[in-house]
């Protein structure tokens, strides 16, 4: 019993992150609006960032900025990777939204079902 | 002296939190967009200001306090401006405020 509680306290972070990831995934595959899909992708990416950063945390540590008198620092390597990933997520979102604007101009709608109907009618 | 500063800072922090809570309750309970906006504007600016002053007392005389002072200045200006812009936008898009109807009394 004590083991189960210990496991729960050690892992609840990851489980909530997986719930967020699945929320984003569901938005991408189930909602027909293109802007909603891109926002779902954004939620997915942000939840992955939280997963990495919570793996980097050390109990009793502090931010990885070297100061006198502190000896335990959180791991800086995932922070660097996630910094890159945040910027790449911005690039993806910007390009995705630009594509949505162009699709809306071409088809007159930003709903995936209507676009399929128009494509099949050609 | 140190205890007095600590107690004062705690009072300010808790007071700020109480005002933010009141603002949040106001947003949920008020009937109309403009009244909700008023609740947010007044209570959030005051609450954030009190929290910042409480943190300044905790920081003492150091660089952190100067940075907090700059953040305080920024929040005092930008909070009401943002709400003003929201209210202007709502008026411009013809959202009518809820007026009291004397016939229904």
């Amino acid at each position, binding site marked *: 019993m004590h083991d189960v509680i210990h*496991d729960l306290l*050690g*892992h609840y*972070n*990851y489980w909530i992150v*997986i*719930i*967020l*990831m*699945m*929320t984003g995934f569901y938005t991408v*595959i189930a909602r*027909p609006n*293109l*802007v*909603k899909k*891109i*926002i*779902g992708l*954004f*939620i997915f990416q*942000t939840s992955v*960032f*939280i997963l990495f*950063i*919570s*793996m980097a*945390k*050390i*109990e009793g*540590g502090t*931010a990885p*900025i*070297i100061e006198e008198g502190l000896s335990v*620092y*959180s791991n*800086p*390597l995932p922070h660097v990777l*996630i*910094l*890159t990933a*945040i*910027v*790449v997520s*911005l*690039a993806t*979102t*910007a390009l995705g*939204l*630009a594509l*949505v*604007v*162009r699709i*809306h101009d071409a088809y007159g*709608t930003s709903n995936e*079902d209507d676009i399929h109907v128009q494509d099949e009618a050609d | 002296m140190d205890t007095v500063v600590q107690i004062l800072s705690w009072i300010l922090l808790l007071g700020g939190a109480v005002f933010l809570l009141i603002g949040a309750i106001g947003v949920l309970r008020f009937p109309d967009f403009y009244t909700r906006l008023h609740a947010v504007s007044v209570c959030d600016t005051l609450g954030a200001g009190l929290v910042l002053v409480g943190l300044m007392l905790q920081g003492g005389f150091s660089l952190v306090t100067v940075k907090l002072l700059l953040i305080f200045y*920024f929040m005092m*200006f*930008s909070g009401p401006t943002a709400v003003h812009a929201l209210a*202007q936008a709502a008026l411009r898009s013809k959202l009518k405020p809820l007026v009291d109807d004397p016939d229904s009394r």
Partner: protein
Amino acid sequence: MEHLIDIVLLGLLMITGFAIVRMKSLLAVAMLTSIYSLLSALLFVVLDAVDVALTEAAIGAGISTILMLATVTLTRDEEEAPRHTPLLPLAVVTVTGAALIYGTLDMPHYGDPAAPVHQHVASTYLHDTPGEIGVPNVVTSVLASYRGYDTLGEVTVIFTAGAGVLALLGYRTRRRNIQTRKLVVLRVIAKLFFPLILLFALYVLFHGDFGPGGGFQAGVIFATGFILYALAFGLGNAQRVIPHPLLRIMAAVGVLMYAAVGIEGILLGGKFLEYGVLADDPVTGQHLGIMLIELGVGITVAAVMLIIYYSFVSRRD
């Protein structure tokens, strides 16, 4: 106590996530995404990732929200009801989620100092940074010096995104301005804050060695100042302040500056992106190299953010 703040923030994130899935009004969804980014920035601060929190707050809650709002106003702002049943997606999502949760049962406990990720390279970085590079912020030293090659690729990715948006959406020069009468308060405050925001961006850029900060955050904050100006005074005025050809040149100059620092290293006898040979003393060389590349990154990021903003907003007529 920290666990309590963690759980509350993660709970709020879940509630916001579910609200984003369910809401029909896309303007509200854009606002909820901004709240989601701010909450994750708070969570990053609690998890001791201060650089990442600053970047997420600037990029997620700042630029991404503006782009989503611009897209929603250019397309429709209500979502229609889905026409297929959600059973198959729900089943797929549940199975994937269950598989992932089964996969996390083997992961090390949250906060465990003996986890495999903390052995190997990370302790070397923490150990060697004061001696070899002399910069207190270890994230900056890893980003700019130890893994500087990855950051060069990242700057190129941002540049490519700017070029891609420019190719997709094009750009039209606006001459018409919006009316002045009703925006007095916003204009005064925008004029008051504009120089302060730019100054703060420069502070974040050059102070990235000693605290949270660096090129990416600084570039985004710099661009945000100009976006505030453009929102209050109209796109025509903003284009007179910082015209589009200048932005294109700035975007390229940043990437070129970064690559030039690398090639300078080769010309002075070292390897590509070796900063130690840039000055007499290796540590001074590291400082100089980090400062130059952060400047390059900041210039490119600011220019590309503004290019993307101009491309989106100049499409409204």
